[in-house]
């Protein structure tokens, strides 16, 4: 089960909606924050704390790409390759990440430093190619800039 403080956080969320089921997405985010990813155990805890069937919790969790079903590296790189970023060279950056960091889409590096996910537009199209590292936006990316930026994420 979650700690008391977290149960309180979940109760506060439930109170905002006419039906407590709405707290499912927010609670999945909380579980991901606490456990790092959504293991079966984590989803079991979510189901218990919201009094929902586990099948519903897993069904919902599996629908959304931002819920992670395996452990992630310390830093999550979310790189956009949709059309605006593609036109500005995003694919080259995918190759670069592979060659420079042995980092491929949906893979975590062996030192667990980075995980990479390819994104469908992150709303930074005017300064593409763009990526999120954890919750930080980085744009106008080139090979050199990526290397420089990733230095900061150990």
């Amino acid at each position: 089960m979650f700690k008391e403080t977290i149960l309180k956080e979940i109760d506060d969320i439930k109170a905002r909606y006419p039906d407590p089921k709405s707290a499912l997405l927010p609670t999945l985010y909380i579980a991901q924050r606490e456990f790092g990813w959504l293991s079966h155990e984590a989803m079991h805890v979510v189901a218990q704390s919201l009094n929902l069937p586990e099948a519903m919790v897993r069904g919902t969790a599996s629908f959304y790409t931002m819920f992670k079903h395996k452990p992630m590296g310390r830093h999550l790189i979310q790189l956009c390759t949709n059309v605006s970023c593609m036109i500005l060279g995003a694919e080259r950056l995918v190759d670069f990440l592979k060659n420079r960091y042995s980092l491929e889409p949906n893979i975590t590096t062996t030192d667990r430093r980075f995980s990479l996910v390819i994104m469908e537009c992150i709303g930074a199209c005017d300064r593409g190619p763009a990526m999120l590292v954890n919750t930080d936006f980085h744009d106008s990316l080139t090979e050199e800039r990526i290397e420089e930026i990733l230095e900061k994420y150990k």
Partner: protein
Amino acid sequence: MCHSRKSGNPEKRNWIPHQVRNDRQKIIMEKILLKNIENPDSADINEYINVGGYKNLSKAFEYQPKDVIEEVKKSGLRGRGGAGFPTGMKWSFADADPKFPKYLVCNADEGEPGTFKDRPILEKNPHLLIEGLIISGYAIRAEYGYIYLRGEYPYAKEVLNRAIRQAYEKNYLGDNVLGKNIKFHLAVYQGAGAYICGEETALIESLEGKKGQPRIKPPFPVNVGAWGMPTIVNNVETLSNVPYIIEAGAVAYSQIGSKDCPGPKLYCISGCVEKPGVYELPMGISLRNIIYTHAGGIKDGKKLKAVIPGGISTSVLPADKIDCPMDFVSMPKHGSMLGSGAVIVMDESVCMVKVTYRALKFFEHESCGKCVPCREGTEWLRKILERIEQGMGREGDIELLSDVSETISGRTFCPLGDGAAGVVIGMLKHFRHEFEEHIKNAKCIFS
């Protein structure tokens, strides 16, 4: 050349009047939606109040809710989320439904590739949106509002949550707003990376804690929406227009931009232009004007090849078709749609097969799987496009692309499938030769 605001006096403004000029005149317009955003503290409530913020809320409360709806109807405001539905009319449908409680939902899912227009409002002018939400909630007599925010905007979430806290502190939100015995509560709901959740019924499902799969319509959300109750779903930009409509009045508002589709519009320009970005311009400005005058023309002196005018789901336009007024009413007559106003500009070096392939990869990934034509069709289209792009296209592939697209069109649960099919149909209409050459030469002719 920016001049000060004279409420209710449209003559004083430098906006294009009721005709669209296709010339290259630079339009200098007083900022309504992006007002004050150069101020680094623009997201703070005090800064917003300093430039006149929340005054329109008190003004709106002097009207009856029905009169606010009438004013918005009269203004001609159309929804900025993509479909361009008249906002006041939508509100009056929810108002006419006798069921209570009613809910107001702000669509901040902004998932349409190429779109980044709601982001500056969310990150830099959140109180404009909040003021718009409170006024709109008052109009439709909703006591609860929710902002459905895409998961990919973590910074906007922080800003919004802080802004909402501030609005509660100043009594703009709560059980007794401004001591007027009006109740309005607001919360942010964070999506989790599903484009389909931008579609209003999928959004509602997601808000209810479920998978984001669209519902069959009718019933429409205005009657049976969130938790089975009458629900208004409006886009961020739509709601952010509301305070100004109250301030200037419907008549003055309707003088801005196109006659059938008035108001300020946020256009987002990306791709091969000198000055990409979000531009606030009068609705109905021509695509040519946006690209050449405001966005500085094509980058590195290259030649324009094609434009996707309203986000990836709208049909491509070739370079010689850009003299079209960018509004919801005109664009369909010119072979495309305004969509989210996301203009993606492509120069002569961009491969149209590759763009189509990448677009379909997106649709395949984002298809929710509920209905067969979309789920299977987008995968088929992607596979065919992939092999053409990789030099393995076969004779008959182009006909197959058309056939699959035509089969998807009009046969899906929601417009996602139509969008995917429309992209392929539009590309084949204008750039068929590129597909043919890829197949003939057995390689991408641009690599």
